[in-house]
């Protein structure tokens, strides 16, 4: 409640509205998880709890293999997109062409997945053609397979998807960092790298880890770009999509959707709870930092 004169009822109603929106957004997902534990699947009148569907899914070797690819892709995405986001954020702070820079970094957000993936597909095939010609002309065998559709191309698609998010999250965290501290560390004899590791990183750590969590989840959930840009493998999300489109709503589909949701909820939910606990403590510290006594 911000002021003493506004009505408590109004405040309560607005909170109720907010929570019902969140509820409406989440309810269908919880519904799916609920169904996935039902022996008789959807549209059955009786409910019998079972983990059978999950056992079927996890016992399917192909599906487990796809989980493995999902994991590799997500890990690679984090290891590339987050450091790149960090580098981009640092360059942004220093550059004088801020608007152009940000426009280019955030533009992929405004291009829908199917469009971006289609263009990239054509791009890679053309590039592959060019590289093949080059490789044969120069006799450099290793050049010819660079842009064949495969893990690398799928990864590039994912980086284009996740890098803007990583960039923004890290940028927002860095906006609270005081650059004089890096300068003070340099003045004490630290190299640029030392100053970053020992002084700056401990303070932006939280933002970097949030970016990591974000990228993992985005990559894990992503299907469109991967579908178009991969070659020779399937991620978990790809399998789910083909299942949904071809088979429809089977018990396995629900279980797969359930797995994806449970993973997302645990990771993010856990992260949320962690930040909530932390933020209480950090609040007090931040308030003290912002306002030290100025007269003694």
């Amino acid at each position: 409640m911000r002021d003493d004169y506004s009505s408590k009822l109004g405040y309560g109603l607005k909170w109720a509205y907010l929570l019902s929106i969140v509820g409406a957004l989440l309810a269908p997902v919880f519904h799916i998880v609920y169904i996935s534990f039902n022996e008789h699947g959807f549209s059955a009148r009786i409910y019998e709890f079972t983990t059978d569907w999950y056992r079927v899914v996890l016992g399917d070797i192909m599906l487990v293999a796809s989980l493995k690819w999902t994991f590799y892709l997500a890990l690679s995405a984090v290891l590339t997109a987050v450091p790149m986001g960090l580098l981009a954020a640092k360059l942004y702070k220093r550059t004088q062409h801020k608007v152009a820079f940000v426009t280019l970094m955030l533009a992929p957000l405004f291009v829908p997945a199917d469009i971006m993936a289609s263009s990239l597909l054509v791009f890679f095939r053309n590039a592959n053609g060019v590289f093949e010609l080059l490789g044969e002309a120069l006799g450099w065998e290793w050049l010819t397979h660079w842009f064949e559709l495969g893990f690398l191309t799928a990864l590039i698609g994912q980086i284009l998807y996740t890098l803007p998010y990583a960039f923004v999250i890290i940028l927002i965290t860095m906006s609270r960092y005081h650059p004089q501290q890096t300068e003070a560390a340099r003045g004490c004899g630290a190299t640029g790298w030392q100053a970053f590791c020992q002084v700056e990183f401990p303070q932006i750590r939280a933002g970097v880890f949030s970016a990591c969590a974000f990228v993992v989840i985005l990559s894990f959930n992503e299907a469109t770009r991967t579908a178009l840009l991969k070659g020779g493998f399937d991620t978990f999300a790809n399998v789910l999509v083909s299942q949904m489109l071809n088979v429809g709503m089977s018990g396995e589909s629900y279980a797969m959707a359930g797995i994806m949701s449970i993973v997302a909820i645990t990771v993010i939910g856990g992260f949320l709870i962690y930040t909530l606990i932390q933020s209480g403590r950090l609040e007090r510290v931040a308030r003290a930092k912002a306002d030290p006594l100025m007269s003694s």
Partner: protein
Amino acid sequence: MANMPNIAVEVTDLAKSYGSVVALKSVSFRIDSGRYFVLLGPSGCGKTTLLRLIGGFIRPTRGRILLHGRDVTDLPPNKRPTSMVFQSFALFPHMTVTKNVGYGLRLRKLPTSEVLARVDDMLDMVGLEGLGDRLPHELSGGQQQRVQLARSLVLETDILLLDEPLAALDAKLHKSMCIELKRIQEKVGITFVHVTHNQEEAMTVADDLAIIDNGELVETGRTIDLYENPLRRFTADFIGENNIFDGRVSRIDGVEATIDLGYDTVTANSRGQAVRVGDDASISVRSERLQIFDRDGKVEDSFYYLPATHMETVYLGLTTSEIVTLPDGKEVVVRRLSDGVENAGFSRGAVIRIGWRKADGRLHTS
């Protein structure tokens, strides 16, 4: 023959622009080693840019910087014999005071016992004994600045740079911190280069001053010289309370130049400046060198007099200022130590004369 003092900092034709924005036009000067040197100027004049160029945090667009005779222009901050104290928020918040102060020493891979010993000594020197385990946000503003000082001094660099170190502290603390800074500098003996816009702060700590305005070096010299005998009009306007009378050179007699103020003419020593008849020039007189006389009182040969009208008396505690206007409307301030009387008996609008000793007028051609 007396020993020539070592030159700690020598700056030659130093300039910095950001695209089309010129932060610093060509600046050249020297700082003697072991002195407390202050860069003084209004906000946005380029003094902080200059300091950061010396420290190595910015690259110059043009010019060279020599520290103790070595060209450091292309060296980063960690390779220069300087360390810096910032205005605020420069302590590492995730480290204790001891860790903060010992940071540079640890980077040099000194043994822990020695690091701790040196840190403790330094904390004692700056008056923070016993506070080693505190975190920065648990300290007051003044204490935080002392920690920064300790962190820089413990490195035993030749030159300490201070970027408006007292700007974030309240007025009462200013004075005592100024005196402490001066005391520490005299004790440690290294060169301090201190940037501020606060005149009083500069006068308290500085041995030597450089006045910067609009990206240019206006004047540099010993503090007392700049106060008593400023060469440039800007310096006279910026330091101390000076009254400046603008006019034209009407006659030159050897080293004496006569300025036509319109309502009167005044002569002053050209002090080595190049003067030509017809040039614009000004005369400045410190407000405490002016006196008020009765309109029809006696006339001394060694004094200049101007007719004026009394406007207001301002009692400021230590000093009392009388504000008078000249016939052309220009305001002049006459200052004196207060004599315990609120009003010296002047009534508003009273016609009086102001006067100063001829020798107290200083000529400025720029």
